[in-house]
């Protein structure tokens, strides 16, 4: 199964047509795939809170939006999630590379990984963790759930899900 294609197929099938990204090594394939989809307008952001602002505007303009980012972004977007996305009740699927989990080669990434789920729980953000490639089968349901409840929803995707880092 090509999970990059599967994620993009599900985004398109759920009418998500505006996607902003802040890159991560693990996300390179899915970002490249999004760039190739004519149904999706892709706008890279310089910072994740900026991206959430773009998504909020696009949503109010009638387009379903999503953000793709690294879990370190949770550390910089708490205020935006609380005072924009949640306060105004806007849906926002967040496809998040979960750095610092199993098969992570960079020690510093673990420092935010240990806080990621706790922060999301504190924010009352529905959170899903993709560890096996087959977990992607839930993605379609998660998107439907997000747009049903008008909340930000986190999909944490770890190194194992993406196939690891070569021989590590």
């Amino acid at each position, binding site marked *: 199964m090509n999970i990059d294609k599967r994620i993009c197929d599900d985004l398109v099938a759920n009418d998500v047509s505006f996607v902003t990204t802040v890159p991560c090594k693990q996300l390179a394939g899915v970002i490249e795939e999004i760039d190739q989809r004519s149904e999706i307008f892709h706008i890279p952001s310089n910072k994740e809170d900026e991206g959430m602002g773009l998504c909020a505007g696009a*949503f109010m303009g009638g387009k379903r939006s999503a953000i793709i980012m690294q879990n370190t972004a949770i550390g910089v977007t708490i205020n935006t999630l609380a005072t924009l996305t949640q306060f105004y009740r806007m849906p926002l699927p967040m496809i998040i590379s979960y750095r610092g989990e199993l098969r992570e080669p960079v020690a510093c990434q673990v420092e935010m990984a240990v806080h990621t789920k706790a922060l999301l729980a504190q924010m009352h953000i529905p959170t899903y963790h993709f560890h096996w490639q087959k977990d992607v089968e839930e993605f379609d349901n998660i998107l439907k759930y997000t747009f049903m409840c008008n909340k930000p929803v986190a999909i944490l995707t770890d190194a194992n899900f993406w196939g690891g880092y070569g021989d590590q």
Partner: protein
Amino acid sequence: MIRSEILKDIAPIIRDHLVVCNIGLPSQELHLIDDQPTNFYMLGTMGLSSSIGFGLALAQDKPVISIDGDGSVLTNLGTLPTIANNATGNYTLLIIDNGSYGSTGDQPTYAGRKTSLAAVATACGCDNVVEVQDKDLGPVLRAAIDSDDMTIIVCKCDSGNIKLPVITLDPVVIKHRFMQAVAS
């Protein structure tokens, strides 16, 4: 002129357009001067007026004006390259530059000292950047809205605030009526 006088001045120009208004006093002032369903008032999230307005402009065809401040743009400087590199003609960014953080007690910003936001916007790749003095804003703003090119306006003015109440509209109501106005 101070910001509230500028907003009073341009209210007839922006009344019929989609406006995303900066957090704090700018939104409170616009709400008091000319509340419209086409106004999206930011109640939190300093710095994102330009991003929200730009996302809205990219998603639909109606003209969109983001009213921002110098302090807020400095908070989210990354917005300028994003706007420059994805320019859309229906977008106008109006930066009311009073050289201070008005909502928090008029502490000076760097834009009031050595930093030129017009020069920053130009360096970021924005093609149409206009720096204008407060009293001259009206015609410049009208031309920017009517133009097919995206425009960044830096409006230099005095710092100073008026006393006024907070916005008590529920955020979901603000969003709902704004989205209805967008869709109408």
